[in-house]
C-alpha cells in the first residue's frame, strides 16, 4: 500500500486543488458571501437571499456533485429526466421543482392565502393602475432585444419589471432557464430596494398638491363577493390566457382557502408550512443555478459571470423604474379624471411587490401630508399588480413558449 499515492490522489480530488481551475469559481464564492452578508446583516429580503446565496455557494464549491447544470442544458423539450434522477445530486433533484414550474405555483398559493383582495374589490378602478405598472415589462423587453438577447431571453428579462419573484422564475424556467440565476437575483434584489428606487421617481413625476391628496374611505366589501371573486377570476383569466393557468389557478385557490371560511387549516398550511418549505427549495436551487463557469455548446462561458448578467442587472433596474413610471402616469390621469379624488402616489404600488410598494406609497403620501393614510388605497393597485404581472407573463409565454 502506497500511502504517498493515496495522499496524492486525495489532494488531487479535493476541492482546494480545483478551486482555481477557473477564475470564476473563487469570485462566485466571494459573491455568495457578499450576498449572505447583505441578507443577514443588512436584512435585504433575508428569507430568500440567505437560501439563494447559500445555494450559490454550494454549487460553486468544486466537485461536490450537488448541482450539475450540464444535465439541464440543451433543448428543454429533450431533457433526460431519468438521467437526472439517476446521476443528479441533491440540488439537481430539488431543481426539478423549478424546472417543471412547481415551486413558483405553490408559492403563489401561499401568496393567495395571505392576500386580501378587499381593497381592490372595494375600488375596482385600481385594476387600471395594476395594468399600467406593467409598462416596464415591455420597455425592458424591447431594450433587451436591442441589446442582442433573443426573444425568449428578452421576455424573461422583461418580466423582472412585473416585480413578482415567482412569476419571473416561472416564466424564465420555461423560456430561458440558463438565465434563471441572474434574473431571480435581479428580481428579488430590486424588490428589496424598492424603498430606494421608487421615491425619487414618485417625487419627480408628481406635484406637491397631488401628493397631499387625501382619499375617501373605500366602501366595505361583502364576504360573498370575496368568496366568489377568486372563482370568477380563475374562470375568466384561464379562458383568456390558458398558459397562465398554473399561476392564477394556484393564486386564486390559496385566496379561496382564506376567504371561504371552511378550510382554515388548509389556509394556514398554505400561508405558513407549505410557503416556508417551498421557499427553502426555491431559493436554494435558484441560487445553485448561478454557476460561475459553465461551458455552452459553442465552448463559450454561459455561466453567471458573463457580460449577459451585467446587462440583466441593468435592464432589471430599467424595468422596475419604467413600471413605476407607468403606474404613476396612470395615477395622474385618474387624479385628473376624478377631479383630484385619487392620489397618484398609489399608482406606483401597481408594480406588485406586495406589500413593499404599497408601504412606499404610504410613506411618501404621509411625507407630503402627515394626515394622509394611503396604505389601504395602495393595496388595491398592489394586488392588482400581482394579477397584471401574471397576465403579462401568460402573454409572453403564449407568444414565445
Amino acid at each position, binding site marked *: 500500500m502506497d500511502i504517498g499515492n493515496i495522499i496524492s490522489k486525495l489532494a488531487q480530488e479535493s476541492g482546494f486543488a480545483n478551486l482555481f481551475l477557473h477564475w470564476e469559481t473563487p469570485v462566485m464564492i466571494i459573491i455568495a458571501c457578499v450576498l449572505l452578508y447583505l441578507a443577514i446583516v443588512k436584512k435585504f429580503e433575508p428569507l430568500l437571499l440567505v437560501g439563494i446565496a447559500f445555494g450559490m455557494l454550494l454549487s460553486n464549491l468544486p466537485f461536490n456533485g450537488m448541482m450539475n447544470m450540464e444535465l439541464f442544458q440543451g433543448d428543454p423539450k429533450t431533457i433526460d429526466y431519468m438521467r437526472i434522477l439517476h446521476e443528479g445530486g441533491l440540488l439537481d433533484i430539488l431543481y426539478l421543482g423549478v424546472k417543471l414550474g412547481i415551486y413558483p405555483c405553490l408559492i403563489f398559493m401561499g401568496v393567495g392565502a395571505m392576500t386580501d383582495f378587499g381593497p381592490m*374589490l372595494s375600488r375596482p378602478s385600481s385594476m387600471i393602475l395594476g395594468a399600467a405598472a406593467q*409598462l416596464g415589462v415591455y420597455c425592458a423587453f424591447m431594450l433587451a432585444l436591442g441589446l442582442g438577447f433573443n426573444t425568449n431571453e428578452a421576455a424573461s428579462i422583461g418580466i423582472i419589471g412585473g416585480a413578482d419573484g415567482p412569476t419571473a422564475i416561472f416564466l424564465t424556467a420555461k423560456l430561458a432557464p440558463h438565465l434563471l440565476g441572474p434574473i431571480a437575483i435581479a428580481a428579488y434584489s430590486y424588490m428589496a430596494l424598492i424603498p430606494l428606487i421608487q421615491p425619487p421617481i414618485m417625487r419627480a413625476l408628481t406635484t406637491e398638491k397631488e401628493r397631499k391628496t387625501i382619499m375617501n374611505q373605500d366602501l366595505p366589501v361583502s364576504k360573498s363577493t370575496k368568496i366568489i371573486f377568486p372563482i370568477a377570476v380563475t374562470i375568466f383569466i384561464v379562458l383568456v390566457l390558458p398558459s397562465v393557468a398554473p399561476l392564477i389557478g394556484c393564486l386564486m385557490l390559496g385566496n379561496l382557502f382564506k376567504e371561504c371560511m371552511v378550510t382554515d387549516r388548509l389556509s394556514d398550511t398554505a400561508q405558513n408550512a407549505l410557503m416556508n418549505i417551498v421557499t427553502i427549495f426555491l431559493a436554494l436551487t435558484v441560487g445553485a443555478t448561478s454557476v460561475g463557469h459553465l461551458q455552452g455548446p459553442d465552448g463559450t462561458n454561459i455561466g453567471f459571470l458573463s457580460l449577459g448578467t451585467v446587462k440583466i442587472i441593468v435592464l432589471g433596474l430599467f424595468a422596475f423604474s419604467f413600471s413605476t413610471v407607468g403606474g404613476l402616469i396612470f395615477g395622474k390621469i385618474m387624479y385628473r379624471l376624478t377631479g383630484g379624488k385619487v392620489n397618484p402616489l398609489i399608482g406606483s404600488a401597481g408594480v406588485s411587490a406586495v406589500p413593499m410598494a404599497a408601504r412606499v406609497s404610504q410613506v411618501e403620501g404621509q411625507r407630503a401630508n402627515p394626515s394622509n393614510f394611503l396604505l389601504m388605497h395602495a393595496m388595491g393597485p398592489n394586488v392588482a399588480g400581482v394579477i397584471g404581472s401574471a397576465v403579462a407573463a401568460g402573454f409572453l409565454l403564449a407568444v414565445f413558449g
Partner: protein
Amino acid sequence: MTNPLSNISLGVVDSFGISLLGFAIVFMVLIVLLVVIRILRSAVESFEASKAAPAAAAAVPAPAAALTAAKDPNMVPAKGSLGDIKLHDVDDKTAALLMAIVADEMQAPLNELRFLSIREKK
C-alpha cells in the same frame, strides 16, 4: 410544432408591435376584470339586500306592538302606539327623559307603556 417566434432576434418595429399588443392585452384583461367585479358586487349586494329586506321586516316590529300582537292577534294597535307620540312644546330629549322616569317610577319596562302625548304645562 416549433414556435416561429421562439429564440429569434426581432427588429425594432416587430418588438414594438409585440410590446404594444402585450400591454394592450394586459389592459384589456384587467379592464374586463374590473367590469366583472362591478357586476359581481352589484349582483351580490342586490341579492343580499333582497334577502335581508323581508327578514328585516319580519324581525323588527315595534316592541310594544309585538307584545300586543302576542297577547291578542286580532287586536289592531291604537294610533300612536308605535311611537307616534304627540309632543306639545317639548323637545325629543326631554320627552325621552320623561318616559324613562315614568317607566322607572311605575316599575314597568318602557316597551310595555304607551305614551300618547306629552304637553308642557305653563
